[in-house]
């Protein structure tokens, strides 16, 4: 059975429903990422699991035991806060030992355990330094070590990298992944950064407005987003999305996006079956748009390069197609103002119902 | 079991709270009680007066009426009205001066690192040393200037002494404004003075009000300098109280009434600026 089970969790603050109905399971040794924009209820969910907030309704099970009424310190959870909340007036050793000390663990046992954890996390040389002088990456390790030393059943991390700047974040993300492998316990990780979720999570739960929109493996969530929101939120640069209408024209079925059309005659049946109306949204990822300087196919659509963002190895091209702006990623020797030809590959296309916001293709 | 424990804990907490309450309010309750009692009840342990009267208050406003009726006449100088107005004038003007001058200096220290270490040390020193050490030279100095027993004497003195508070409290507020907000205006062509009036002051209006009220309290309650400098013309309320207290004979009722009257405005102001009190009393170093 799963390590952590969350069932129909709901939380209301005054007249604001922060978490509406959230259910998920975390298996042994699995990392789940709760991903969503600020205000989506992910942190509240985490705090309820930790026992720092009381759910308005719903159940939380840890190791099959209902813990709704169990105080935080007895739930067997480790919690790492957004800015780590290490105790600034203590040394690394004292921070790591804190949980054991307040439990009145014998001195030798404390020393032994702290040594072990410090070795595991590479904090050995810093044990007797004050945490005030440490770098962020070391503080992160202290915060994790402090929780892990108590052998928690589940580790909860609340946006641990959100206040770190880009270069450092990249390094610390790798380090987290490494630590995760090292300590190997069930983890719930909250973040608003889709890249973090993609790289660290075994599975990702994308949240919006207090609900989970989709929960799946990173690759799956990237390749086939279930809702419009997930499609937009995952991936950088974002997926291109256009409103369009499904119409029959001269015996063919096409998606008419005003400035261009896409022929979908071959798939018309499936689309028509699932769509609630002809109003659809078509989506395509920037890297799935092949760019060409020449018109290589009659289906190709003409665009004009408006802006080029160079990312080093590849570039993002901001194209104007009719009245629409569109992003494509790749590498092409063009300049701003040049004409390029693009193609839409049906395999790479995503279709969403405009009303229900749900994927239909 | 656990429930029982909780109830006991709660009961203990409220019991202790009531002890604290009695300790805090005891002196006030007794003052109120005394101020409503006729002389015949002044020596009774009852807190509720048998025959409550307002005479003790009324007598404060009559200068020549012997206080306490049949009791021994004392050297009470005058009705409370003059000292009350004196206190009001002196406290208000010196508050305005201290806050204005203090704001400028605080702004200079915060933004322009102006006024070297000596000024800062000196302002701190004026706060730390007992006022009594200045009594002797001040007497001599003011006598030479023919300032004794004048408004300007106390106003100047209060301004100088409370400046320290104004500077440190206001500096705390100014420090919280991001300097970028002012630099932006500078780039846009504002004169530094325009920035002060258009950007800084509107942003810390609340802080200025709070520090003004706090300094008003200090001025209103100042005793030592007033005692030394006011002789007959500019007697302030605290000095008036001291005259009652050291008067020959027993006038408990009027003493209590006077004390209460002097306290009421302070308590009102105190609660208005409750959250700024620490800042004031600890120099703006603790918030």
């Amino acid at each position, binding site marked *: 059975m799963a390590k952590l089970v969350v069932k129909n969790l709901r939380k209301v603050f005054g007249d604001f429903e922060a978490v509406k109905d959230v259910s998920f399971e975390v298996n042994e040794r699995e990392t789940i990422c709760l991903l969503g924009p600020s205000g989506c209820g992910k942190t509240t969910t985490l705090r309820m699991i930790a026992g720092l907030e009381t759910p308005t309704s719903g159940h939380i099970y840890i190791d099959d035991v209902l813990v709704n009424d169990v105080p935080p310190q007895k739930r067997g959870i480790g919690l790492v806060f957004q800015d780590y909340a290490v105790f600034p007036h203590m040394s690394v050793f004292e921070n790591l030992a804190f949980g054991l000390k307040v439990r009145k663990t014998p001195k030798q046992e404390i020393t032994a355990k702290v040594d072990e954890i410090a070795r595991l996390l590479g904090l050995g040389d810093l044990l007797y330094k004050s945490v005030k002088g440490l770098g962020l990456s070391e503080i992160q390790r202290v915060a994790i070590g402090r929780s892990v030393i108590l052998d928690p059943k589940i580790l909860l991390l609340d946006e641990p990298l959100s206040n770190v700047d880009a270069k450092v974040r990249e390094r610390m993300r790798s380090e987290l992944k490494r630590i995760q492998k090292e300590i190997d316990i069930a983890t719930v990780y909250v973040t608003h950064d889709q890249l973090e979720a993609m790289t660290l999570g075994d599975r990702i739960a994308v949240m919006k407005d207090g609900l989970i929109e989709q929960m799946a493996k990173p690759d799956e969530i990237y390749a086939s987003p279930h809702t419009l929101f997930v499609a937009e939120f995952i991936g950088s640069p974002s997926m291109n999305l256009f409103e369009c209408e499904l119409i029959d024209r001269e015996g063919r079925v096409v998606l008419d996006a005003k400035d261009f059309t896409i022929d979908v005659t071959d798939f018309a049946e499936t689309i028509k079956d699932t769509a609630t109306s002809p109003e659809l949204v078509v989506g395509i990822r920037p890297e799935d748009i092949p760019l060409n300087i020449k018109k290589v196919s009659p289906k190709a659509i003409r665009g004009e390069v408006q802006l080029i963002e160079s990312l080093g190895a590849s570039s*993002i091209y901001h194209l104007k197609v009719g009245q629409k702006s569109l992003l494509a990623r790749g590498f092409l020797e063009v300049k701003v103002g040049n004409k390029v030809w693009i193609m839409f590959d049906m395999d790479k296309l995503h279709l969403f119902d405009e009303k229900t916001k749900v994927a239909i293709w | 079991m656990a429930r029982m424990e909780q109830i006991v804990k709660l009961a203990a907490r409220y019991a202790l709270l009531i002890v604290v309450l009695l300790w805090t309010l005891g002196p006030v309750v007794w003052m109120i009680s005394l101020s409503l009692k006729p002389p015949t009840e002044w020596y009774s342990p009852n807190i509720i007066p048998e025959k409550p009267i307002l005479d003790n208050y009324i007598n404060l406003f009559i200068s020549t009426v012997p206080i306490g009726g049949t009791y021994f006449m004392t050297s009470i100088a005058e009705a409370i009205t003059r000292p009350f107005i004196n206190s009001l004038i002196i406290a208000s003007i010196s508050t305005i001066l201290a806050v204005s001058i203090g704001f400028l200096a605080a702004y200079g220290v915060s933004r322009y690192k102006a006024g070297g270490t000596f000024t800062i040390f000196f302002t701190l020193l004026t706060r730390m040393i007992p006022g009594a050490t200045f009594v002797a030279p001040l007497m001599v100095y003011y006598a030479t200037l023919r300032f004794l027993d004048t408004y300007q004497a106390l106003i100047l003195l209060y301004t100088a002494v409370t400046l320290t508070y104004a500077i440190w409290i206001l500096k705390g507020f100014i420090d919280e404004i991001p300097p970028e907000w002012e630099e932006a205006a500078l*780039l846009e062509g504002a004169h530094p003075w325009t920035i002060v009036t258009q950007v800084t002051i509107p942003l810390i209006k609340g802080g200025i009000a709070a520090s003004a009220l706090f300094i008003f309290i200090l001025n209103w309650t100042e005793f030592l300098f007033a005692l030394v400098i006011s002789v007959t013309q500019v007697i302030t309320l605290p000095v008036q109280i001291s005259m009652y207290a050291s008067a020959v004979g027993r006038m408990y009722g009027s003493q209590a009434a006077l004390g209460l009257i002097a306290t009421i405005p302070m308590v009102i102001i105190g609660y208005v600026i409750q959250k700024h009190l620490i800042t004031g009393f600890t120099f703006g170093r603790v918030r």
Partner: protein
Amino acid sequence: MRRLKLLSGDLGEAGTMVKLKLVNVSKRIRKEQVLKNVTFETGDRELFVIAGPPGAGKTTLLKIIAGLVPLDEGEVYIGDEMVNYKLPVEREIGMVFETPAVYPNRTGFENIAFPLRLKRLSDGEIKKQVHEVAEVLQITHLLDRKPHTYSGGELQRVTLARVLVRSPRILLLDEPLKNLDAKIREIMRVELKRLQREFGITMIFTTHDQLEAVAIGDRIAVMNEGVIVQVDAPEKVYNFPKTLFVGRFVGSPSMNLVDCTFREADSRWVLEAEEFSIDVTPVKDRIVTSLTGPELILGVRPQDINLGEKPTSEQSIEATLEITQSLGSEKIAELRVGSILLRALVPPSFAMKIGEKAYIELNREKLFLFDKKTENIVVHGLL
């Protein structure tokens, strides 16, 4: 068209060239050398990015350009004019600070109107200009609201409007996107570039995020510890880093760096790392000419490592796959070769299992060699 009109209306000298030039600018703050001989020149109407880690001196540099901080040595020129002794306002520079200069006690309109009120323009004129700029930035709906109701992106737009309404000759932006959410940051950076083009303004932009820098900069000055290390177009900075610092700073994921020794073995010249060596005999001469010692650092971008399940040549390096991280459009594979850890960027279809042996093929054309002592580049490409 409308936008251009807005510009030419106020900016009388819109036709003249607006370049910014710094010559040997140095600054000490409390005994610390914050800026050391900073020299660069922007092009006319260029988006010039100053990129560097926090603490590199970027903010101080901008404040010196704006005239808010006095400099110790050197000269600042706007156009051909030396402006060292000019007051900030006379320099006609607009600056967007990291902390948005939007006053919480005033509405959006009053904030944007603030600089115009200082100029004592008539109410009608102020209203007209504020609305014009608000329309360009699509913030008309924010004008009547107070800043605490704005989102991060909206706050940034109002800040920009307040600066642009003065039609400055040069616009300085100090980490304007730092406090925004990742998604909004992406949108805003494009928006900024678009504005810069449309207003035809010289823009100097600082950032600690190399991605932001290469994405929108016409040219980039990479800065470290008060020194400008390299000024170049984004592709140049990426493809031809002048120093180890630039190589490491630009590019995501970061460049892999491997310590190695340059030496002769069996009449071949090789770069010898701990677990592998690379034959560099063909480019030996190029290496030797700019060397201070045999200790070198080999730089390989994750994009330039190819992985195979079997060795494809004698040069293939055996490694163990330790971790894979999915980025959606690609994956990062972390590989161990002895004590060396290498990161490679692989396609999403990459399916090797953790713990398996993988064979690394380095794209020799794209390798970098840095001198370990001077940290300067020795050679780009080992073909």
